[in-house]
């Protein structure tokens, strides 16, 4: 494993943009994979020194323990405001946020819309697991109709609790949004696609033409009370019909040449 002298070759290793700290995420949770993919891209693009991340309250509030780059933890819902502050004083740096659905689409909806509307030149990574994971699986704005959570114990009643909020489609309508895409990490192929989208987003950030926004449709085995395998199956069958993967807005051709 150490070297190639005994005929073995390193085909995969942990990137230095990840720390050695053991992640606290539940088995099968999407967060760890999404962390890893972002950090791989930052390492591979050689932009570690120029990148600052912001992770707000939510399951991923400890992202700074795992991501071996300069990071800020932010108040619940305020990640993109903090990221705006960072980016405005360091316009030459790469800035990204890493937010849950409660954060981005409930308490931080105002910040989400206005950050994108200003076309802040940052990447927003939006991990949509359909629940409030950190606080124990309560209903999120993205919770599916009829879906049971601790605060919709009889299933989300659309008449009194509203419909699942497709905020990604909403913000794609804003002129400040440059690149809006919906991805997932439920399969290896999906992980590869997500990686590509992250790469593209950091490339776009160099162009200073607007916000890049990646929704990652994710599972929450603990919150959903399923095994990891069941949760990924459930995600495909139930989340995808409401949150279909794919690009929602792509820059017009001259934006980037690759």
């Amino acid at each position, binding site marked *: 494993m150490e070297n190639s002298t005994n005929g073995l070759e390193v085909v995969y290793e942990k990137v230095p943009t990840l720390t050695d700290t053991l992640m606290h995420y539940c088995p099968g949770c999407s967060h760890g994979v999404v962390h890893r993919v972002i950090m791989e891209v930052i390492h591979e693009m050689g932009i570690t020194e120029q990148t600052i991340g912001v992770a707000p309250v939510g399951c991923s509030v400890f992202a700074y323990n795992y991501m071996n780059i300069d990071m800020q933890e932010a*108040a619940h819902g305020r990640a993109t405001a903090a990221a705006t502050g960072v980016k405005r004083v360091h316009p030459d740096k790469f800035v990204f946020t890493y937010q849950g659905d409660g954060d981005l689409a409930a308490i931080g909806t105002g910040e989400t819309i206005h950050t994108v509307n200003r076309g802040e030149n940052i990447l927003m990574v939006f991990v949509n697991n359909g629940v409030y994971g950190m606080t124990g699986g309560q209903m999120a704005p993205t919770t599916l109709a009829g879906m049971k959570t601790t605060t919709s114990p009889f299933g989300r009643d659309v008449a009194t609790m509203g419909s699942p909020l497709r905020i990604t489609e909403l913000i794609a309508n804003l002129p400040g949004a440059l690149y809006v895409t919906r991805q997932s990490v439920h399969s290896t192929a999906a992980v590869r696609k997500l990686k590509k989208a992250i790469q593209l987003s950091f490339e776009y950030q160099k162009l200073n033409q607007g916000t890049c926004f990646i929704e990652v449709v994710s599972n929450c085995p603990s919150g959903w009370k399923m095994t990891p395998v069941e949760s990924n199956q459930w995600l495909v069958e139930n989340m995808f019909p409401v949150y279909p993967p794919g690009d929602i807005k792509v820059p017009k051709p001259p934006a980037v040449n690759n």
Partner: protein
Amino acid sequence: MGSINGTSETKLMKGNEALAEAALRAGMQAYFGYPITPQSEILEYLIIHGPKRGSVVLQAESEVAAINMVYGAAGAGARVMISSSSPGISLMQEGISYIAAAELPCVIVNVQRGGPGLGTIQPAQADYFQAVKGGGHGDYRLIVLAPNSVQEMADFMFDGFRLTEQYRIPVMILSDGALGQMMEKVTLAPDGSLPLTQKPWATTGKPASRERNFITSLHIEPEMMEEVNLHLQRKYKELQKEVRYELHHTDDADIVLVAFGLSARICEKVMDLAREKGIRAGIVRPITLYPFPSDILREIAEHAGAFLTVEMNAGQMVEDVRLAVNGKKPVFFKGRMGGMIPTPEEVLAELESIVEHQLLHA
């Protein structure tokens, strides 16, 4: 505004504009704000003059967003300021608590108006408790400076940035609508008189040569969280050496007026009127409301007969005066609320009645 920057300059300016201009001269690198009377001139002035002089100036979508932009920019190492008036400052409290906990330097300006609720746009001092006791959740303090002139609106921007960067404790300039709106002569220090400080802890991008920097206020283990609190408390203790106040004729005073900001100016008139009538009045004007000048009040309580605290609120600083005097001498209160400014005559009448009933016949 003509040519500015290079030299010190004396001119007639509104308090809000003097403060904004001083912020630029003090090397401010970013400002985030949201309109609210009576402080909107700060944002309006800065949006014209800031960007061409190297400062980010951004109108946020709310005070909540604005204070979190301050968090981001301050965490990334910039010299940052934010301003608002009472309702807007209330909205910022969660963010201020995070900033205090993460030990980020910044200056927060509150040009107070009358409340509670939407209240009035007239000047008040009713946010004293909020400013000096923490304001948001958790055990934290701000360094609170209380200007009483347009000159001090400008000067305290320099003091504010200096103190906040030295201690990594957010500074609040607690002003009011009258000071913000009034025009007075002001001498502005030249650009560059406050050098930028090194911030090795800031999130500026991690080079291979150092460990990652992270800004956080999360300490999930209670033992750790208590350590952080103890560290903060030690810093607050250290602040005692930054106590500032102004004394007028306290040496021979029988009765001592205690007032900050605009109220202190009214008290100067009261003191003169009282002395003309043969009443030996003096003034203690706290300039730092936190740390509070308790020691000097305690000393004065040894020889003065009584204290009269004058505020534009229902009686807030008077509690700190009473704590300092600790029962040694009576402490009286005269206040007006809801945007009303006490007249020198009504304060004088109160003072005369105290002298008459409490001191002479005691």
